[in-house]
């Protein structure tokens, strides 16, 4: 209750929620929906990008292989066609052969070299692609030596149609070379990349934006929901309702469910409140009833007590009167009369007096307990050390008589009603002294344990102890242990239990018959 008030006054709600979320995320490794959506977006963009890179790589490689293959085929066809030109050293036809390469765009140059190393024919295409490329790219291609493809194909001597000469035996009569300009391919790749990368970036930015909007539209209502739930949890304001989110079906379902749950809680809360009020009323009536009974019954009992006393006085008067009047009576009648006057009537009045006194005590007990319920508490910081020492001082006579040694350890401060707490300690101490075992020196110990949000106080004795069968009933009203030799009406422990309950604590007992008992009770800690 104290914590909650402090939370409400010290912190605004929003940081509390974010703190809660942070705590939740740090403890379970969870992350926000927005982060998750972004992670998914990043991964899928990455996958698309990698796929594109792989695909482009594959395309470039296969295009390169295709070019190489085409150039090889071209070279081998040209080599066959150039064979006769080489044999007859026919420059014209060789050049004509090479000129046919002008139909192939990639070919930038070609030549036929004779066996003696002299060039028979050469061909140079007019440069086209290379001129379009920026200088930096041309330099890069040159440095990587991927801008050109140079192929050489040996020209073999003719095989005579009549003879099936094997290829390997044919002589090399010259060499044909072809140079292909690949800058066109690279330019194409650069164009594709130049288009793809900005498009990819644009798509990523767009999806990121959409993602943010989605995250906002989902996360925002969820935050509202969490905020409302927290607020309701703190303020117990069950009549609050969340506004529906008609745009998002799932969220709307959550909100509807939440509102329905709130309705149910509200109705149950009201029901509970009604029941509690009813119970409180019954309780009040019961208290009034016991107060009335104990209070009102005492008056007739006091009457009975008074008239019994009166009866004793009357008996005295009667005895005096009869002393003078009895002399002439015969002896046996006189003896019978005296027996009635001195024995029977006093015995009866003694029983009546005893019974009335007992009844008076019981009624006083009931009255005490019913007063406890009605009594206004005066809660404050209590120095238990001092309180217990005062109590020990007050029962010094009894403890010295019993030969008991009382040992007190340092005790803390608590929040309680000092009078009530003093009664509790006084009762427990006097019980401990009363039920000491006369066969051994009495020892009583008092200490307290810090148990988190409360203290537990212990009163331990090495007295007679309480048999297990009595332990459960010992706190009930008018119940006493098996040891009836000692005085008491069985109110004390019941009273202590009620008093501790009023101070928001609880009492417990541990005992072994013949060895001693430990009574302990909890009290909330002082708030400062």
């Amino acid at each position, binding site marked *: 209750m104290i914590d909650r008030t402090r939370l409400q006054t010290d912190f605004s709600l929003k940081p509390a929620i974010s703190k809660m979320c942070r705590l939740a995320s740090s403890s379970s490794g969870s992350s926000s929906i927005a982060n998750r959506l972004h992670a998914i977006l990043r991964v899928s963009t990455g996958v698309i990008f990698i796929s594109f890179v792989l695909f482009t790589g594959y395309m470039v490689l296969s295009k390169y292989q295709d070019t190489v293959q085409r150039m090889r085929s071209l070279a081998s066809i040209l080599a066959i066609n150039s064979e006769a030109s080489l044999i007859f050293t026919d420059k014209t036809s060789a050049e004509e052969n090479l000129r046919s390469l002008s139909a192939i765009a990639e070919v930038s140059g070609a030549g036929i070299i004779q066996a003696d190393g002299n060039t028979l024919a050469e061909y140079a295409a007019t440069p086209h692609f290379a001129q379009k490329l920026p200088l930096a790219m041309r330099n890069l291609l040159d440095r990587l030596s991927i801008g050109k493809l140079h192929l050489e194909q040996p020209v073999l001597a*003719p*095989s*005579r149609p*009549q003879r099936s000469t094997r290829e390997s035996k044919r002589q090399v009569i010259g*060499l044909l070379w072809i140079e292909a300009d690949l800058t066109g391919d690279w330019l194409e790749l650069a164009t594709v990349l130049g288009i793809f990368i900005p498009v990819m970036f644009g798509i990523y930015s767009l999806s990121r934006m959409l993602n943010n909007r989605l995250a906002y539209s989902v996360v925002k209502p969820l935050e509202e929901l969490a905020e409302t739930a927290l607020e309701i949890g703190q303020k117990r304001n069950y009549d609050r309702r969340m506004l529906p989110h008609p745009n998002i079906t799932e969220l709307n379902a959550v909100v509807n469910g939440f509102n329905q749950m709130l309705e149910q809680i509200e109705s149950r809360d009201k029901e509970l409140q009604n029941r509690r009020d009813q119970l409180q009323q019954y309780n009040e009536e019961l208290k009034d009833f016991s107060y009335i009974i104990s209070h009102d019954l005492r008056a007739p009992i006091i009457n009975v007590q008074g008239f019994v006393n009166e009866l004793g006085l009357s008996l005295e008067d009667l005895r005096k009167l009869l002393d003078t009047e009895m002399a002439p009576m015969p002896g046996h009648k006189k003896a019978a009369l005296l027996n009635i006057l001195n024995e029977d009537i006093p015995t009866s009045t003694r029983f009546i007096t005893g019974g009335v006194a007992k009844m008076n005590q019981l009624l006083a007990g009931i009255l005490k307990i019913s007063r406890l319920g009605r009594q206004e508490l005066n809660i404050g910081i209590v120095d238990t050390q001092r309180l217990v020492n005062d109590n020990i001082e007050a029962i010094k006579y009894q403890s010295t008589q019993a030969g008991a040694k009382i040992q007190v350890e340092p005790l803390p401060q608590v929040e309680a009603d000092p009078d009530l707490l003093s009664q509790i300690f006084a009762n427990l101490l006097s019980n401990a002294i009363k039920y000491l075992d006369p066969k051994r020196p009495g020892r009583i110990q008092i200490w307290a344990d810090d148990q988190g949000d409360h203290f537990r106080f212990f009163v331990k004795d090495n007295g007679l102890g309480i048999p297990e069968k009595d332990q459960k009933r010992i706190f009930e009203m008018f119940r006493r242990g098996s040891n009836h030799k000692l005085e008491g009406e069985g109110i004390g422990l019941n009273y202590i239990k009620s008093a501790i309950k009023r101070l928001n604590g609880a009492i417990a007992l541990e005992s072994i018959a013949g060895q001693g008992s430990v009574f302990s009770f909890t009290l909330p800690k002082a708030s400062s």
Partner: protein
Amino acid sequence: MIRISIAVWALLVTLLAGAVADEATEYDLKAAYLLNFAAYVEWPSPPKPVTVCVYGNNPFKAATIAALLNAKSGQIDAVFKYPRQLEYLTVCNILFWPQSEQGNFGKATALLNNAPILIVTDVQDGLPQGAMINLITESKHLRFEINIGTVLASKLKISSKLLKLAKIVS
């Protein structure tokens, strides 16, 4: 392997070229052409070896022929013969008719009468007289003409590669 072959071939050609360069290169080239033609001609019954005949006065140097045969031994199995009588010409597969024997050329072609013999000559107007290939010099380059009609009549087959280099006359 290819590089070594090129080197060997280059050496041979250089030697040959050196030899040719020293003296009259024209007939050395013509001899090489004669031998090269063998690779592009198909006879009805494949000869083994190809008999290359040079009629009459032999304009070729023996050393050139020997060097050529040696150089082409891997590709062309050929022998050179030098007949002096027309009757012997039927054993030839390729017949070269030098310019010096111009007078008898028409007689010879008539005699051979479409036999499957590749008749090569450097006589002027050789083709109309029945030659299949005529060697000509055009601006210091040795070239050749082919008479398709004569070739077809003789049942010889000439490779398109050769035809591509030639001046075609029909």
